[in-house]
């Protein structure tokens, strides 16, 4: 209890902690919601690729002295999504290999660019692993803007998203632009990565996309509940992670991901319907062990 009071005192005193908490919560919601679609469309690896592909875009934006690195990041993110599709459609290279190639290629280009800029203010560590304590007011507004836009789009296009994710063939049959939906999702993924840069960084953003959504997936049988639960787990992970990192003086992004992973582990073993431990107990009690 002592620690919690200490943390609350710190929050009310230091604006950087307030910013960190708000940014974390927003990223939790944003990643949680977008992540559900990534999981259900079987695109976890794609999410990983796009989050890495954002790096060169971010670095270019820094080099050009632009304060908002969204445009660069979205450009390289979207380009690599197109590139992955182009490679797998125009050669016998399968999707996962194409993703592997582009993921590492774009990431390496980004690293080469950063290291060529030694002596400038670009801190590769912060881009890769986040620096939640340096979230500015502008960053907060931008993250809030992206979150609201993405949530509105999901509410507005819920039925199109549901159908094209569940049954892409029928979606195509009734004339939904399934390819356009796919590429819009890729662009949203790049936006989400940029919004999460400060909080968890490029390397761990995929955890925020996949883990809360996967936890929710184990607990419900309806998409809209999965979306709400996933956002909830995202927020809980972010807030608890920021708390732990402040109290124990450890890396924030990593703490957030550790909390999210613990939540997943609990759901994996104890989910009422899917839980491994629950099923095991049931089998023991019915004598079929």
């Amino acid at each position, binding site marked *: 209890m002592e620690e919690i009071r200490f943390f609350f005192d710190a929050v009310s005193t230091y604006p950087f902690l307030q910013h960190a908490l708000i940014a974390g919560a927003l990223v939790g919601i944003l990643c949680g919601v977008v992540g559900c679609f990534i999981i*259900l469309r079987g695109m976890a690896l794609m999410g990983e690729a796009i989050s890495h592909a954002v790096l060169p875009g971010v670095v270019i934006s820094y080099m050009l002295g632009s304060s908002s690195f969204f445009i660069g990041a979205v450009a390289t993110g979207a380009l690599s999504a197109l590139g992955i599709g182009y490679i797998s459609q125009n050669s016998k290279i399968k999707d996962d290999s194409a993703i592997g190639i582009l993921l590492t290629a774009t990431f390496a280009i980004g690293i080469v660019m950063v290291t060529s800029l030694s002596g400038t203010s670009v801190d590769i560590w912060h881009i890769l692993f986040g620096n939640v304590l340096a979230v500015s007011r502008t960053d907060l507004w931008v993250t809030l803007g992206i979150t609201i836009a993405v949530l509105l789009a999901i509410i*507005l*296009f*819920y*039925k*199109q998203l*549901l*159908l094209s*994710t*569940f*049954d892409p*063939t*029928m979606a*195509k*049959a*009734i*004339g939904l632009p399934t390819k356009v939906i796919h590429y819009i999702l890729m662009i949203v993924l790049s936006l989400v990565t940029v919004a999460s840069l400060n909080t968890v960084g490029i390397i761990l953003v995929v955890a925020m996309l996949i883990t809360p959504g996967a936890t929710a*997936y184990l607990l*419900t*049988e*309806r*998409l809209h*509940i*999965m979306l709400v639960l996933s956002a909830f787990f995202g927020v809980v992970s972010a807030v608890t992670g920021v708390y732990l990192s402040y109290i124990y003086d450890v890396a924030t992004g990593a703490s957030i991901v550790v909390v999210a992973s613990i939540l997943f582990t609990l759901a994996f073993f104890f989910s009422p319907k899917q839980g491994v431990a629950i099923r095991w107990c049931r089998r023991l009690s019915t004598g079929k062990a």
Partner: protein
Amino acid sequence: MNSAVQVKNLSVSYYGHTALEDISFEASPKQLIGIIGPNGAGKSTLIKAIMGMVSKNDGEVTALGQSISKVRKRIAYVPQRSMIDFDFPVLVEDVVVMGSYPHLKWWKRPGKKEREIALDCLRQVGMLEYRKRQIGELSGGQQQRVFLARALAQDGDVFFLDEPFAGIDVSSENIIIDLLRKLRDEGKTIFVVHHDLSKVEEYFDSLMLLNKKLIGYGDKAKVFQPDLVSEAYNGNIAMLSDEGGKMVVTG
């Protein structure tokens, strides 16, 4: 408007190899049409090309007298069961409500009316009591009935079913075929991709024998002939007939 679906010189190829070659036919309404052929004959591709889901190299398709893009709402499609992820977080009734999507404005959500239609369609396929189940908890036949209910909810004039009888139980099969007959009697045109030759004569009014090319099309008595079937199946099949009917031997 005398034809439900009209296809002229349709050709489709994937990466340079031909999937369908010069297919032409015309289907009049109020028919149950079986699309028959061996694996890889292009049966599913034909359906998808008619519905504009795969791009065609050549040819013309009209449905209900208009180009497909204008009549999509009135064409209901039941996918192959293997194409669906049955772990998806969606309940039986949610799936059936999807049938109303083509009729809703892009921003509109399904409401009370759409839910009632969905429940009525579930009743017709005998799945009403399962409406709150997750779709993966059902047996294959029950899942197939749910997808048929979704097509019913769409209230179309032309139906395409891709392998609806593959791997399902007898009672589901009977429920489905009875419903398809009822739809036919109401004036609908129903295309069914099918690869089990044993019930072909019992189920369909017309047959389409396909193996990349159109081998035969028309009344089942005319098309379901040993020479044509054998041609469609590259000679890997023999049909014996006696007074009681025909028997098919695969080899």
